[in-house]
């Protein structure tokens, strides 16, 4: 029995030692959660690219969105592990900065994926969607689609959470800018005085929250005809609320994300248009950057005119509007995630 256990132990030890010998470079991926499809895809993209380039990848995640402690522990593990690079989507964009500094001091390349740190230059580089532009695209599309009716629009704003994280603010304010509404303080949603806005409600980015938020706004004004949503699950929930009062046909819903269920909803007319982002691309580009850094010491450069590397965004709709570049749902489905 004891001999068997010893044998098993040595086999395990050998298995553990093998990858470390085989690959010279190791990298870490730290996401907010292991369960959000967006991060699931991100992990897939990173894993595939790491296997292709012969990099050992270790993945970590918080238990829930906002689990800052797990992310700090993950960074510390990566430093102890001698990783060459860290890809991180931070839960707490301000508080993580100290840990990131420790990693960078240890000579590790740190790339923020999807969510910029505060300040943005706390990481070596940020690979992200331009969330403001994502919002602006759906705002411009909604304006163009409504045409003359823009001035009498009744708009429901379905945001993410009370704490107003950066992605929430950027998408919301981008939408309003695209729609032609003065955003007052660009770093804050909900302070706009434009009478066309019925109100802002938070959704937690899921169907349940979307439905409740939409119901609450409909009690405020049953004649809402434009609905901005932070993401597609919230849009799906809002649609259920509209269906319940029989108004699903005459309301324009716009959203951001580009997940597969969301793009299907665009194809079926539930959502008018959505802005698609590319998590697989973010992650694979991140792994490539770590490889380059490990080989040559060169760090990635930002997109011209921006403080980060823009991984692109595309408007997905089957009803293109003049002057707003877009792709159709067929192409959107090819590139979707989740």
């Amino acid at each position, binding site marked *: 029995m004891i001999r068997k256990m010893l044998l098993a132990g040595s086999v395990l030890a050998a298995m553990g030692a093998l990858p470390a010998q085989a690959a010279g470079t190791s990298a870490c991926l730290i996401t907010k959660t292991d369960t959000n*499809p967006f991060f699931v895809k991100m992990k897939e993209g990173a894993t595939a690219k790491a296997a292709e380039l012969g990099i050992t990848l270790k993945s970590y995640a918080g238990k829930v969105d906002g689990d800052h402690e797990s992310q700090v522990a993950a960074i510390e593990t990566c430093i102890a592990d001698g990783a060459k690079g860290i890809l991180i989507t931070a839960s707490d964009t301000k508080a993580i900065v100290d840990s990131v500094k420790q990693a960078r001091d240890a000579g590790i390349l740190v790339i923020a994926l999807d969510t910029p740190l505060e300040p943005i230059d706390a990481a070596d580089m940020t690979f992200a969607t331009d969330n403001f532009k994502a919002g602006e695209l759906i705002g411009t599309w909604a304006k163009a689609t409504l045409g003359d009716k823009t001035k009498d629009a009744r708009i429901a704003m379905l945001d993410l959470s*009370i704490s107003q994280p950066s992605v929430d603010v950027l998408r919301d304010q981008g939408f309003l800018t695209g729609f032609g509404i003065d955003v007052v303080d660009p770093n804050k949603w909900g302070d706009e005085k434009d009478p066309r806005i019925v109100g802002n409600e*938070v959704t937690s980015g899921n169907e349940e929250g979307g*439905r409740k938020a939409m119901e609450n706004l409909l*009690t*405020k004004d049953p004649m809402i005809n434009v609905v901005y949503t932070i993401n597609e699950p919230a849009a799906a929930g809002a649609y*259920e609320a509209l269906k319940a009062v029989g108004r699903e046909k005459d309301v324009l819903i716009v959203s951001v994300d580009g997940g597969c*269920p969301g793009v299907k909803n665009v194809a079926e007319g539930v959502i008018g248009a959505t802005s698609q982002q590319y998590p697989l691309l973010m992650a694979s580009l991140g792994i490539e950057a770590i490889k380059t850094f490990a080989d040559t010491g060169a760090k990635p450069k930002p997109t011209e005119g921006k403080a980060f590397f823009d991984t692109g965004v595309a408007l997905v709709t089957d009803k293109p509007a003049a002057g707003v570049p877009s792709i159709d749902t067929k192409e959107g489905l090819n590139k979707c995630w*989740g």
Partner: protein
Amino acid sequence: MSEQTTTRQDFEKGLEGSSTKVASFDSHNRGLLSRIQHALHSAPAGVPLIVLSASIIIFGLILGDKFFTPFSLTLILQQVAVIGIVGVAQTLVVLTAGIDLSVGAIMVLSSVVMGQFTFRYGLPAELAVLCGLAVGAFCGFINGVLVAIMRLPPFIVTLGMWQIVLASNFLYSANETIRSQDISTQAPILQFFGEKINIGGAVFTYGVILMILLVLLFHYLLNHTAWGRHVYAIGDDPDAAELAGVRVSRIRISVYTLAGLICALAGWTLIGRIGSVSPTAGQFANIESITAVVIGGISLFGGRGSILGMIFGALIVGVFSLGLRLIGTDPQWTYLLIGALIIAAVAIDQWIRKVAS
């Protein structure tokens, strides 16, 4: 012991001349406050009902037409339906002096099973629903066995079960959402509890009706059947109940299993409410159901409170949320007031308990 002395045996001679009164409660001049205390002791759903009525009246006065429409008032019912049903499960467990932290997770897993069995394996939706209900009941059964037979504290058991079930839910579903449109075309029965009846502007979903029926059913079962009285007895004093012949373990297992089954029903209702099957839904159902139970005047120490109180508690939260949103206050005020209500409810519970001691 009987106070009547018998003359045939002289060992009770010493009792001669002592008081022959039967034990009774003191009834010396009660003040208004203590009379209220007694009234509330005998009608545990009274406090939440008063708070509910007061909050409806206050919001009605402030908001007027917007709030006092059949649409708005029934909207509150729709918004609390899922939590109200989970609250029934939570009430049963809390009455046995337990607590169930796994209710929300069981609810979500059941709804995911219903959806995935239909869409991944192509089972008839009716069968998938039954499978979902069975999974919920099974999770509850495991909770029950661990609490009743293994004698582990309910808090710990359900804390563990919460994480196990939630993790299974994410692993099994790969966090894939099944869209509302697919469900309504291929398996509309999954959205059954989202169907609605419209009576002059008042909208009742089947989910709301289910909630009301469940509450009435369990109100009856708890108050008029032996099983129900045993549930209360166990919560009050399990040892005394055991001595009185109550099969404590068996009743406990039945309570947790039923709670699991009711959570699965809530999962089915949840699909109707949000349209889709989403593995991320209902994450806070455990806390929200405990909130409803506590505000509803059901004692966390077991054995006291009425299930009607729970539903009033859930409605109070619903009225506050919608009312404050309509006024346009920062939603944080809702949490603040709900928090204050929770503490007030427990304080009142303690005060009422003094009558019994």
